[in-house]
């Protein structure tokens, strides 16, 4: 019998990444820095509002969430630039503080709901969440985190509700939202990418897929054999694009006679624009393209060594990998190298390598967001199962909102 209580549940996909948290609902994605900080005092905040000259007054850029466990406002994402002390949700792929992570979930759901309202859709009312957790978190931590979330929900009859109180610090507007939680489905972070490929690229056929998710602070490996994550071989390694950019920062520091330290964030910002030069005061312009190339090759070599070791284990079990997938923010830097190494490992032709080693570009989705899309699909599939229906595998990302500065004018 279909469970009709699921008929009005909105599927949501989400993950708290090392640097960015991403949430997806239908064709919408919101992404913000995985950081939370204490709010300013009321008087300081009022002063900041008066002096703030930014024309970017979007909620996601100026968001504060009321933390009822501490009875104070917490700044989330970009807004935490004004906080004295900031906390990242995760460190080396592991959730640092449940209360902070809970704020992250509230922020994600609020921003998605806000996006809906701004596009003339009703706010979120009832959700089922597919949620990516770091591989190293494991079952116990996942269960503990779930219990924490449960303890923070308000019970009304037999239903559980999440109350969110949010403030746009730039405008001073305060909004409250009440969302019914139906379920949360925890999965390994990279499994979201697999779901996206399963539904769009693989035509709902089960191909054995080896997913590598290269993030900011970690890279994750997750072989999915016959639709199930191979827990023994999955791992998250505390090495990612941060390692590359911080090494470049260090080299610049040393080459400048240890006089100037260029923050790795400055280098990170340049990469998506294809800029490889940075001005070092007193030393001139420093071109880090060759160093970047070398650092990326080193990172790729570490990844490929782990992959090759896993392939031996997988082959011993009589299984083979049909597709190799690379996703995550670092994929744009590493993917071509990764494909070349896999190709050489198997002695594949270019044609076979292009067919078998793939990235999120094949889906028309940014490398960074493909996991959150997949978790949304996972939640959608579970809702369809409860309703005894076929799942709709289609998705098209139409809007992506981030907390990066927009419409900058002085």
């Amino acid at each position, binding site marked *: 019998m279909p469970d009709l209580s699921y008929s009005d549940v909105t599927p949501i996909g989400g993950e708290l990444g090392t640097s960015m948290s991403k949430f997806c609902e239908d064709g919408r994605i919101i992404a913000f820095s995985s950081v939370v900080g204490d709010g300013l005092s009321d008087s300081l905040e009022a002063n900041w509002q008066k002096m703030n000259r930014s024309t970017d007054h979007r909620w996601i850029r100026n968001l504060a969430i009321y933390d009822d466990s501490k009875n104070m406002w917490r700044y989330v994402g970009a807004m935490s630039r004004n906080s004295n002390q900031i906390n990242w949700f995760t460190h080396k792929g592991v959730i640092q503080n449940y209360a902070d992570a809970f704020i992250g979930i509230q922020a994600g759901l609020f921003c998605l709901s806000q996006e809906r309202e701004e596009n003339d859709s009703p706010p979120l009312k009832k959700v089922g969440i597919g949620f990516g957790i770091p591989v190293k978190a494991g079952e116990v931590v996942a269960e503990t985190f779930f219990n924490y979330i449960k303890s923070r929900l308000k019970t009304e009859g037999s239903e*559980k509700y999440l109350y969110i109180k949010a403030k746009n610090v730039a405008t001073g507007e305060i909004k409250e939202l009440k969302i019914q939680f139906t379920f*949360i*489905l925890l999965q390994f972070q990279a499994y979201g990418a697999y779901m996206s490929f399963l539904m769009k690229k693989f035509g709902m056929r089960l191909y*054995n897929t080896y997913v590598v998710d290269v993030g900011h602070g970690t890279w994750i490996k997750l072989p999915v054999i016959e639709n199930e994550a191979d827990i023994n071989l999955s791992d998250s390694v505390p090495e990612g694009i941060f390692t590359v950019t911080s090494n470049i920062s260090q080299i610049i520091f040393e080459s400048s006679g240890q006089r100037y330290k260029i923050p790795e964030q400055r280098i990170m910002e340049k990469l998506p624009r294809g800029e490889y030069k940075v001005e070092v005061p007193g030393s001139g312009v420093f071109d880090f393209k060759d160093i970047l190339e070398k650092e990326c090759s080193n990172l790729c070599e570490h990844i490929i060594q782990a992959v090759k070791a896993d392939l031996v284990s997988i082959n011993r079990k009589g299984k*083979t990998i049909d597709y190799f997938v690379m996703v995550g923010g670092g994929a744009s830097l590493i993917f071509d190298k990764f494909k070349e190494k896999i190709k050489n490992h198997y*002695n594949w032709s270019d044609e076979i390598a292009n067919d078998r080693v793939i990235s999120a570009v094949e889906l028309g989705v940014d490398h960074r967001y493909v996991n959150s899309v997949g978790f949304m699909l996972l939640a959608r599939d579970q809702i369809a199962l409860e309703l005894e229906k*076929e799942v709709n595998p289609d998705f098209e990302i139409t809007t992506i909102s981030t907390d990066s500065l927009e419409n900058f004018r002085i």
Partner: protein
Amino acid sequence: MTKKTPLSDLNKNDARRNEICLDAETMAIIDAQCEEHKTNRAKFIAVVVRLFLDFSYIARTVGKDIFSFRDEMIKAIVRSKGNMSEKNGDIFDAISSTSKENGKEDGKENGGSKSFSAEGFDIKGFKEKFGAMAGELSELRTAFLELKNAVSLAVKSPADARIQDADDGRPQGYDRSGLKTKDTKIDGISIDELAGEFKDSLPPSYKDKRKKLHKLKF
């Protein structure tokens, strides 16, 4: 390789033979093929079964089921189309003649090859009938060569191949007549690596496997 029931165990009046009930469409195909090749149903089916066993064995050797193997062969043909040469044709003919010789030798020693050992089966006549299909199968040649080379190299290491060449007393890259062979680079790959080139052609459908996961319900 394949579990077989000894021929002596099969009674000619075995009721199992009557259990093979084919649908009308399949029967029509069989009859049309019998007419085309001037043979009867029993002989046709005997050959079909033996061909199936042979191809099934080859498919298993490269880690595939026969249908996946067929699909990959078709893809290989598509890939190799346009790359065919006269040389390839000659080699294929040479392989065919070698196979015939092997068949004769096997026939002397073992009383018939594995594929064509059915009692009273007119193999010669049947091969002539199927010979007409050779033209249509010409596109398969390149793909077949690729496969044969790969399997041969897996069975015989490159070192062995070099030793044999040396024993033949001719430098590498020259054929038995002393003519320089076409420069073809064939990388030695193992059966595992060969299987790695094929992805599953008939993967199971997610629709059949999807199930309710352990959701943490509120």
